């Protein structure tokens, strides 16, 4: 990600037409699917900006209205859809939360994980009220991204993209094991697991300088997908992948779409430069809406081409 801009959009999340944008200047909320945005920390009456580096919404947002936001030193949570916030600190010295993932079965297990830039992964098993560092086997504590298995309740699988490659946990983030990437393909900036991961074992990794990597055996072996060079800031898979094998890859200056599980890619002109985050709230079908954040703090709504 670019470092010479002022208000990077780090992450975007949407549920039930309510969207959140985590930005260097704080967290922003939209209640109309991304058309208009408001500052979400108004209730905190902050005197200074509170850089927010990640955001995640509960899978049961319609009923629990729960949102988590990662900041330097802790995790903020809201139980009313972003109207009011509480903070839980992660301990000292403060760590910057770079990634948040939430269990698809959050309503039952209350599991939430926070990746940090300095101290590895923190895990909460009680809906974010308490956190503890779980870094057994995690030999690289600079977490760039986390990905959680859609079948987490059964397989407890997580992946962490780090400066030196990828680590995998198969016990809900309590311990991590190295995954062997081809030499020179690290750091890993983004990860995406197939919605049918339990069956097809497929995942994609976006690297800083070697494009997108694909594994179809749960990370044991990797092949390179033919993407242009450049840091892959975000990867999105179609919700019905692999039936519809669409993948969206966000590079700093390009938005790429593959319709064949990463075999070939086509650049989708956005007219935007310095893109840092992307969200496809309705999937990747032709004509579906896209929300794109930039390193200048802009959040723009577009639609995917119909062909």
């Amino acid at each position, binding site marked *: 990600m670019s470092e010479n801009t002022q208000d990077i959009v780090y992450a975007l999340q949407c549920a039930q037409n309510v969207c959140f944008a985590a930005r260097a200047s704080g967290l922003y909320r939209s209640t109309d699917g991304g058309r208009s945005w408001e500052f979400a920390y108004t209730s905190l009456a902050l005197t200074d900006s509170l850089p927010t580096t990640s955001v995640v919404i509960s899978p049961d947002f319609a009923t629990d209205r729960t949102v988590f936001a990662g900041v330097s030193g802790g995790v903020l949570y809201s139980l009313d859809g972003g109207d009011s916030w509480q903070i839980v600190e992660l301990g*000292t*010295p403060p760590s910057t939360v770079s990634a948040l993932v939430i269990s698809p079965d959050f309503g039952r297990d209350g599991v939430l994980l926070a990746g940090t830039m*300095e*101290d*590895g992964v923190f895990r909460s098993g009680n809906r974010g009220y308490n956190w503890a*560092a779980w*870094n*057994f*086997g*995690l*030999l*690289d*504590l*600079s977490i760039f991204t986390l990905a959680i298995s859609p079948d987490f309740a059964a397989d407890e699988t997580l992946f962490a993209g*780090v*400066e*030196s*490659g990828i680590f995998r946990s*198969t*016990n809900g983030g*309590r*311990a991590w*094991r*190295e995954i062997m990437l081809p030499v020179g393909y*690290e750091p890993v900036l983004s990860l995406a697991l197939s919605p049918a991961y339990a069956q097809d074992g497929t995942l994609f990794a976006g690297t800083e300088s070697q494009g997108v990597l694909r594994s179809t055996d749960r990370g044991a072996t990797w092949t390179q997908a033919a993407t242009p060079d450049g840091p892959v800031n975000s990867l999105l898979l179609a919700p019905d992948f692999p039936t519809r094998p669409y993948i969206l890859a966000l590079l700093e200056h390009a938005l790429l779409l593959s319709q064949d599980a990463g075999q070939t890619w086509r650049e989708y002109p956005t007219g935007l430069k310095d893109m840092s985050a992307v969200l496809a709230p309705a999937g990747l079908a032709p004509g579906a809406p896209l929300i794109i954040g930039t390193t200048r703090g802009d959040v723009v709504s577009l639609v995917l081409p119909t062909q």
Partner: protein
Amino acid sequence: MTKKKPAWQKPGVVFQPRLAQAWQQGIDQIVNAIAPTLGPLPRLTLYDPSVSKGKLPEVLDSGGTIARRIIQIKGRDRDVGAMLLRHMLWQMQEEVGDGTATAAVLFQAVYREGVRYLTSGGNAMRLRGYLEEGLRVILAELATMRRHLEGKESLAKLAYSICYDEPLAKMMGEIFDIIGAYGRLELRSANGREIEREYVEGMYWDSTLLSRTMINNPQQQRAELENLAVVATDLEIEDPQDMVPLLTLCIKADIEKLLIIARKLADPVLALFALNREKGRLKLEMVGAKTPGTSVDDQRMALTDIAVLTGGRPLFQAAGDTMRHIRPEHLGRARRAWVNRNFVSIVGGRGDPRALRQHIAALRALFARSTDARERATLQERIGKLMGGSATLYLPGMTQLEQEFNKEVAQRTVNAMRGAMRDGVVPGGGVALLACRERLRAYFADAGEPEARAAGHMLCDALEAPLRTLLHNAGFEPGAILADIRAAGPGYGFDVRAGRLVNMAEAGIFDAATVLETAVHSAISTAALALTTDVMVHRRDAGDAMMTGKP
């Protein structure tokens, strides 16, 4: 005039068939003491240390330990045979920690049939060659059955197949799922009824604070630092002047917290430092920890590991380094560290993660190559420390006897679990060995030489022996059950606890592959070697038995 020697000092030469008969008797005595411990429904052996006054009896369920306790058996010739087997079992216990009862039973079966064949006129050297060929076939077949286990439930089942203790197995499953094959696990006895565990974040080494005045957390009696620089050395810092370059470096680099790991910080050094801080001339907060390790080698290894972890470079006395030559690249960095009277711990070392991964990979490769038990233990510990955390398992026991027994069972389980996680597992309950017989029969099917055919038959029969013993120990009649297993097909075995035929993989009944392979290898190669021994020369008699493993 020469003085007459006592009988036990007389030299003697023993030939066949007396040698084989005597060895067979000695081997049988040891095996009969160990065989009852095989399987999930074993019987125990009580060791009476009556020669050592004040020592409590010991309850034993490990073949290796029972063999170690039998230091001599009655009868000079028999004793040699028994000690040959004892040495093999001891070595195996040291190497893989389990599987000694299987090895003992296999050894006995091969040796007994071998002796019978040789008595009828077979050639020992040719037989040995074919037994070793058969061994290679068995090991190759076992390799095809290997698989790796993941998840706490699978690991708990594996642990159960080693220790046959449900609460311990459940805990081991959870712990090994977290710490992995190389992770650090400390076993401690505790007075109580419940088994407990604790996980600690970070890497820590045996050490101590170099001055109690550095304690800044009086509640926990330890010194803590955050966002610190680390200097690691085996130097003794006596002269305050030696510290000047380091302090200058810290001031220039804006370092406010410093951990010095050194063999000594002399009082004048500490006094100078305290004085400067008191007068406000120095903002630096410094904590000193003693260099971990007692020997030069231990210290070198610990300092190297700390340097890789923190991204610094250690200063070694042997390399001619001094504190006056310190440069920025010698300083490591870490997120947090603490030192108390027993340990120094570093959390979040800021070394290059790629270098750390390569360093651990190199240590693992060394571990895989090493055959020296002590070196392997050291490497295991070093890798475990670098993995980012440790676990402590508190083992209950109301009496010392119970505590010692529980700790021994746990230690044996830990050793076997590590091997199983590193090298995989095979179907348990003797089924993997049974499955090798088909390949063995095919291999020797067209054998022309009688020794080859004999070796094939011998090994096929011997591979049944562990399962027969396991069933016998559990109170079942082996003949009928073996027939049922054959009829059920590949992968099926007998769960003696449930008392029924099951698919071993589905039931989670596994053996550690390395343990089984080592047992097979040790038993067959040692028995083959023993069968080629024709003459025994005694230098002196070992005297009467001190303890026997009478069945």
